[in-house]
């Protein structure tokens, strides 16, 4: 499966929307059934292409949220107000609609359950999506690696997969989840309530001697800040893999 997932010519395929999940007011997940899906790795993405009636095409990349253990391809999409693709995928699309996808794509930002180094996952906003595939894969495969997630969101309403993360962390002592809310937080909030900084990173991250594997995903500035904080704290840059999404037009 892994071999099929990384080799071969990319072709566009039609996936059928089997389920829609409203994750937050602005974020939806689409579970796609793609015939002959070759399987994927946690952290990979797909390209999605929409074609208008006049033939105009728009293409975007979306991370896969479902683990390799799930035959469906779940995409979690944040609706960007001026976007060309995301308002359709996270708003207009309906169960039974068909969407053109190609993939899985990417072999750099991937994690497999056989790796037992402690794992540090750092997510900014919808950067949680490929990291969630890793967390779900970890749970489904019963992986032994210890995992810490630091997840930055604007407000509690913007936290994607909030209940599922709480449930998974409660069920597995090897997974711990730390949230920080940067814009507003509810009364009695016990998590962090500021942008990520060195103190927070020192509290959440594995000690340097554990040589952790690190995956950081989020907006460009977030990724660069998180990565620089870890390198300053003594992490080897080679332990850190990053994936940035910028203002690509959604």
């Amino acid at each position, binding site marked *: 499966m892994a071999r099929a997932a990384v080799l071969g010519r990319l072709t566009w395929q039609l996936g059928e929307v089997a389920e829609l999940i409203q994750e937050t007011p602005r974020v939806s997940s689409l579970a796609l059934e793609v015939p002959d899906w070759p399987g994927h790795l946690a952290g990979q993405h797909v390209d999605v292409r929409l074609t208008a009636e006049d033939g105009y095409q728009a293409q975007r990349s979306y991370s896969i949220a479902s683990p390799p253990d799930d035959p469906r391809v779940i995409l979690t999409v944040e609706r960007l107000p001026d976007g060309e693709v995301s308002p359709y995928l996270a708003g207009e699309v309906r169960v039974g609609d068909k969407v053109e996808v190609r993939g899985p*794509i*990417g*072999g*750099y930002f991937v994690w497999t359950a056989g790796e037992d180094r402690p794992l540090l996952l750092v997510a900014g906003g919808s950067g949680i999506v490929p990291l969630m595939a890793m967390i779900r894969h970890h749970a489904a495969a019963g992986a032994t690696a210890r995992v810490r997630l630091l997840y930055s969101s604007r407000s509690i309403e913007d936290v994607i997969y909030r209940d599922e993360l709480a449930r998974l962390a409660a069920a597995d002592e090897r997974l711990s989840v730390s949230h920080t809310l940067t814009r507003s937080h509810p009364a009695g909030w016990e998590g962090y309530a500021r942008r990520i900084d060195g103190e927070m990173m020192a509290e959440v991250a594995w000690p340097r001697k554990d040589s952790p594997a690190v995956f950081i995903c989020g907006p*460009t500035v977030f990724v660069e800040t998180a990565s620089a904080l870890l390198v300053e704290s003594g992490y080897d840059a080679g332990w850190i*893999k990053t*994936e940035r999404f910028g*203002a*690509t037009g959604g």
Partner: protein
Amino acid sequence: MQQSDLKLDGNAIAGLLREIFTMEMTNAESTCGGCGKVHAVGRVDVYLNAPGVVVRCPACEQVLMRIVQGRGRYWIDLSGIRCLELKA
């Protein structure tokens, strides 16, 4: 929008590179022709806000690769990369 928001990384062109090279390229190691630093293609800086794709070295900002598509063809300038090492 800030300039820094426009900087992506090699993961963003993984699909395009697979289209061209018909293999997974984000794991390939590229040696910068300018500073000699080696980075995985998934790690290099990528700008899509140009008539084509511009790929730069994250260490010294030298242009590593430019890709332009049009009229059913690709034009690929690899002159900034000294070496691409990938799994056979």
